[in-house]
């Protein structure tokens, strides 16, 4: 069976959050690719399509200047800059985005996106409503390590 390509945009994917990947990679359903920052995410998305894209809100800018500039303008740290949120706007609502991408891949649709981040739902619900992204999960110490897999299953089964 061919594995579904999915993208996980998460700067802690190889560190604190790596255990979320185990259930995904043993599920036999998905080929999990990782982008650790906004620049890498844009490059990865250009090589889509992906059956699902899971985004962390607090990510770093990477090397692309427009993301570095936005990161600096927005306070110079990932907590304040919340580049994952800006990346979602660039992809799903370009007119309201601060970083305009040269092109947004046609396969990108809000239903294919989910947010897995430490932000509480209330902190991002306004944005997610605007962006029409309905899948959101808050990462806490109590979050099961199947959270990423569960979200991918929800998105890809819709």
């Amino acid at each position: 069976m061919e594995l579904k390509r999915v993208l996980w945009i998460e700067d802690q994917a190889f560190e604190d959050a790596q255990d979320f990947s185990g259930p995904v990679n043993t599920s036999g359903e998905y080929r999990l690719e990782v982008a650790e920052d906004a620049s890498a995410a844009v490059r990865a998305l250009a090589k889509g399509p992906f059956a699902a894209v899971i985004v962390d809100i607090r990510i770093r800018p990477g090397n692309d200047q427009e993301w570095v500039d936005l990161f600096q303008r927005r306070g110079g740290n990932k907590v304040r800059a919340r580049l994952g949120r800006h990346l979602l706007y660039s992809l799903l609502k370009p007119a309201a985005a601060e970083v305009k991408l040269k092109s947004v891949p046609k396969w990108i649709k809000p239903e294919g996106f989910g947010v897995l981040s430490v932000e509480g739902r209330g902190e991002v619900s306004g944005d997610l409503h605007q962006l029409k992204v309905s899948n959101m999960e808050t990462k806490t110490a109590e979050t099961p390590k199947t959270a990423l897999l569960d979200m991918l299953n929800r998105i890809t089964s819709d």
Partner: protein
Amino acid sequence: MKQTDLVKQALERISLWDMPIGVYAVAEDGSFAECNKQARKMLGLDTDGEVTGSMKSYYGNLSDRARAIANVQAAEQKGAFAGAQVVPLEIDGTLHWAEVFCRTVRDPQKHGVIGFLGCIVDVSERERLRRLFDMLPAGVYRLDAEDRVVQINDALVKLLRYPSAESVLGRPVSSFFADENEAREFRRMIIQKRAVTNEKVRLLRENGEILFASVSSYAIPTTDGSYSGREGTIIDVSEEEHVRQILDEIPLGTYQVRIENGEEIIRDCNEPFLEMFDFDSPEQARGMNILALYRHPERDHPAFRRELMKKHKANGSLVGYPLEVTSVKGREFTIEVNSRPLSGPTDQLVLGRTGVVRDITEEVALWHFREDIGKMLHAYSSTLMMVRHVVDSGLELLRPRAAALEDLDGLDDADGLESALRDPTGEAIAQLTRLLELVETDERRKDALPLEKWDTLTRMLALFRDYRHLIPDRELWRPALRDAARIVCETLAAAKKRILPREAARAVRRAALAVERLCCVARFRQVRDSVITMDHQVRALREYVTSQVLELERPALAKASALITQAVRNLADFARSRGVDIRRADVSEGARVRVDERSVIRAISNLLHNAIKYSWKRSDDGPRWIAVRCRAQQHQVIIEIENYGVPIPPDEIEYDRVFEVGFRGRLSEDRGRLGTGVGLADARGIARKHDGDVVVASDPAVHGASRTDFEKPFVTIATLTLLVADSEERE
């Protein structure tokens, strides 16, 4: 005979010298030839007999006389008499001002000047007033009935920045007001009240600049009492006004309290004071006993007065005194009082006090908040210690059974882990393949598990075989293999007994457990490293937060090398967990510094921690290492901490962003490195409190490499400088 003719006859009998004004005649050299009674009286000469002496003796400066004579002769050359001249004369040791009307006396034959004839009047009083008018630092002016300027002194001309008095005279006073309405209002007020004192107005200078002036003026009445103009003084209060405006904007309350019948009564206060205490009007505040604003008057007022009087006796002011107060509407808050007593005729008698107060409620809350954070971080530090101990115990428990590894340190990177996993996964593949083949050869054995579970085992076998291809990122191999091993174990544990070949199943579980154990050891080591890193962060943050609350300890003499040794000791565990050697080079020759040791050790520890944290391997097979160099140069001890690894982009250094509290560089989270963004800021703060500094430089490790290629290693050097304690101090 007409009366006028009678007067003419009488004039023949009246001498020039009988005039009711001083008249004198002197020779050219100033010797008196004649002097009438009035002149003698004025000049202090004998009133009877031959006049002696010289006019010259009355001049303190003979050039004044020469100038006066020159004026007389110059006028006469033009066929006129010189006008009145005011000259300074010294009479009986006192300076007098004399107004002189003078003409030459000429030789009847030769027509040359042989002397002078003059009238003299003592105008000292008038002259002093004129000079006072001209030389007063305050502006003085006079207006006519239509409010046009008829007189103005130099001070006011200068104050208004006009070139001369002439350029001002005759102009309507309204043209000097910034707002003509204000000019009309001032005139109305002066006519109504006859006089005003210290009225603040906005005037316009010649260059258009606004001048804040305090004007005191009174109306000049005509004989019937109506307004015929006014006179007054003007003082420049621009500076005070600007300060007052600033004070109104930065909410500093000013107040004055008078002691009346033993009570401390508010007599004056500014707008911010009124707002601070929720007063509706100045009248509501004035006359109130200030104790009504104390939250705990019985407790706090005696203590406040004691402190105030203590400072007063030392001829000082009470500064920065915190006081809990309440507004007139019952709102409770904390102010900082800066106050000075108002003394009476003797210093012992205090009539009241003036002061400046500032709302410090938020600062006090922040202070408590910092204390709370400090306590919380202390608790976290204890929790981390507990976690570390548990992780160590777990590691000890797993270690003997882990795959035969001589060096568990090899598990800390993806290459080492892959190499360590080769044999256990190979064994798991072999045993699982054998089991599945055995099941394949005997259909009855499939009953041991539901069909989908056999699919699961087949899928796990595929994962063990192909994880390098199925999972693109090698950092995610470990969690996948661990989960796969766990799934295999759990699946077989749930199988029906006596159906599966027992030994084969047991061999699969043993092999899978070995994979799981190895993956867990690797993960435990990552967790332990994270705990050690976080432990330093939490302790450093706690130190930083509490240092904002506590005073610096009394500085003590310490060897720079000893401070470094202590900091290195603090970081030894962290360096070991990161596999980083600390290489020291000390040529400071025992140089000593006078510092708060605890703070400076913290500063050095912060720099060391960064260096260790951001280190990469310098070569594939070599260890990671950082260099700590210490030297004494002139009056400074210079401590350099160098690492090779994560770059700091130039813009973050150029604009000192790396020294901002809470700032984390955009590359600082490379490989998930933890941080709080206070280490460098704290280190620099400590250094600067000791008259030293911290600077940072980060350059490509390879000579000539791009300064913006952040994939390549940079060499970063943090330099801490401290002042060497002087030799006398050391002795």
